[in-house]
């Protein structure tokens, strides 16, 4: 029974190096269920029920994607919009994801040095992550320290193999990661009842 769900999203995986290698390595792992969004939903028509069912069985959810325009590829964002629904993932009764872990495995085209106030990306990479962290928080998920491979186009074969190995090992050993010992479980994130119009209100 797989308890690790990898949501992979790469719009042009045929041109990818890092993400393709990772997807290939993870496809054979016993405890891993891999969902390649661009292969499953080439028409962007997400089967919400199937996605929610896959999430229900997982303890660790992994987002595996390249960083495009400082964010996730559009199909992953659509997946998030459609699958993490009000009343299911958050809001009243929305506890379906609570207690699960969320881990980002991303790759960037720019080298690590570019993610610096003096580099052309102007911010440390962490500065782009608050939307991810808050997404996890709102759904009651524990946000794990992300694994980011910078300079994905130029990374050496050896470094790529090491990266793939790290991911495979991590997924196999979760949740017995040293850094998770002092990481607290996520606190429930309540949404006040008056924060948004109620579903039952009459028009």
């Amino acid at each position, binding site marked *: 029974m797989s308890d690790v769900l990898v949501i992979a999203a790469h719009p042009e995986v045929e041109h990818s190096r890092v993400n393709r290698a990772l997807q290939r390595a993870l496809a054979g792992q016993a405890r891993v269920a891999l969902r390649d969004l661009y292969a499953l939903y080439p*028409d962007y*028509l997400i*089967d*919400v029920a199937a996605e929610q069912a896959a999430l229900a069985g997982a303890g660790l959810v992994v987002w595996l994607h390249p960083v495009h325009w400082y964010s996730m590829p559009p199909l992953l964002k659509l997946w*998030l*919009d*459609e699958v*993490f*629904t*009000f*009343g299911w993932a*958050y809001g009243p009764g929305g506890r379906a994801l609570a207690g699960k872990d969320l881990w980002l495995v991303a790759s960037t085209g720019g080298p690590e040095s570019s993610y610096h106030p003096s580099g052309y990306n102007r911010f440390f990479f962490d500065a782009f992550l608050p939307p991810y962290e808050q*997404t996890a928080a*709102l759904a009651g998920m524990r946000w794990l320290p992300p694994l980011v491979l910078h300079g994905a186009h130029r990374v050496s074969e050896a470094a790529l193999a090491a990266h793939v190995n790290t991911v495979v090992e991590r997924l196999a050993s979760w949740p017995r990661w040293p850094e998770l010992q002092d990481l607290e479980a996520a606190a429930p994130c309540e*949404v006040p009842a008056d*924060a*948004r*119009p109620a*579903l*039952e*209100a*009459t*028009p």
Partner: protein
Amino acid sequence: MTEGPGWLQTSLVYLGAAVLAVPLARLLGLGSIIGYLAAGIAIGPWGLKLVTDPGTILGVAEFGVVLMLFLVGLELEPRRLWALRRPIFGWGSVQLVGSALALMLAGMAFGVPWNVALVAGLALAMSSTAIGLSVLNERNLMPTTSGRSVLSVSLYQDVMAIPILALLPLLALAPAAGAAAAAGGGWKPAALAVAAVLVIIFGGRLLLRPALRWIARSDTPEIFTAASLLLVVATAALMHAVGLSMALGAFLAGVLLAESEYRRELETDLEPFKGLLLGLFFIAVGMGIDFAVVREHPLVVAGVVLGFLVVKTLVLFAMARLMPIPLQERPVFVILLAQGGEFGFVVLQGAQAVSALPAETASLLVASIAISMLLTPLLLLVADRWWAPRLASAGAAAMSEIKDEQEAPVVIAGFGRYGQIIGRLLAANGMSATVLDHSAEAVEGTRRFGWKTFYGDATRLDLLRVAGAGRARVFVLAIDDVEQSEECARLVREHFPQATIVARARNAEHYARLRALGITHIERETLDSALMSGRSVLELMGATPHAARNSALRFRRHSVELLEEMAPHINDEARLIAISKRGRAQFEQTWARERELTARRKGRAGWHAPLADDTGD
């Protein structure tokens, strides 16, 4: 034995022998050629004596070789033939001249006079086009390097048979006879020959296609077959009349039609005739083996057979190395060209006629050639068992070279409105496909449009085979007729299981029938276009384009799921109605609930599931 017309008797003997011997030979794993040869020996003057004059049948049977060369020509577009000019004239002459000289020297070493040795050398240097090309076809080796090389050398031999026959009188033992025969030459026959070739080339270009189109439009299959046969017979007759090789003329006509849309249909129609006549030809060869000579000089015959095979093999080995031919294709190349051939008979016959050769030597050589032809299939079997396995591991890398010569990996059956769209999408992505359509008009129209299309009925197994279904990765079934579509699907599933079928379905019932055959990639032909129209209607009625799109796609998914559920119960009407009713009810419930939700959540756009707060409405 005297009652009944002669042809009835003859057919009875030949067909009976073939029908008995060929399956037996195949059962023993010997191949059909051996079966025919054995049948010939059995019914011939040295067997059961059912036929005593093999010469009479040989003339008819030679037409099998003519037909075969026409079919070979059909496979070779002029462009590809032009690309073969070097192998034909270069390697062809190396083989013929090299083998003939080596054989002549070997003969002279045994004390044979030089002119007799030369005639014998030329006769023995020829290889059997009939056996060679039949084996290549049987093993699907035509597109490989060795296949093309065997074809090139055979073509060169066919071309050269004519000048050799013309030269024979000069080698005559009695000079008087030679001079008389040589006097036949002059500018007139040469001009006639050139004129005949021109007639074939221009006639083939300008007249044949419109004529074939006109015949095809009459929609009478047997008349198209008759026209195919007539075409080959007429070409052969024309070439014969001007003293050129019939087979060569047929080959030329074939090349000219290789680019036409009727290529596949011609191939399919002539294939059975070719097969039977070639069989007859092999039977005639079997009957022609003069066992009297063999019995009188067993050692001499054995020596000649062994000797000329060894000499030719050495020449061919050197060629294979220099050309170069991939390692694992060499056995076939060497064995097919080392054997003697039917043109050898012709040369020997001609030599005897101008007394360039003593009669006894001639019949000894004829027997040797025939025996070498009998040995060829056996040698191939031995090579398959002992030789090829050793080469297979040595040359695995060389195999990748032949890829570009193979058939298109996609076959599209039915090139009407549906198939054309698929073809254009493939072409836009730089892929090619073999296209089959049964309507002459559709084929003509699409060709004008720039597509490579062939005229033929996709429910014929033989036609599917020539179209390359056996090598296709994807078979697109875009035929509009439901019956034919199913028939074709069944054939492809059964005979070409390696090809994945992508099918067009007329309606739900057709969908279910295709599904029952195990096909998974099926699309109903009107579903998607109707949904696109549905989207337009929704938009015109006020839905946003994106909402209309989502609604249509979700409707589509539901509809396909429902159909998948219904498909196994195609013959159970009550069950179908129940499933369909339940499905529609579920669908309407889901839709109603969502409409209600949307209506309640004022300001929230469309059919979307509710969005997270901070995405902003």
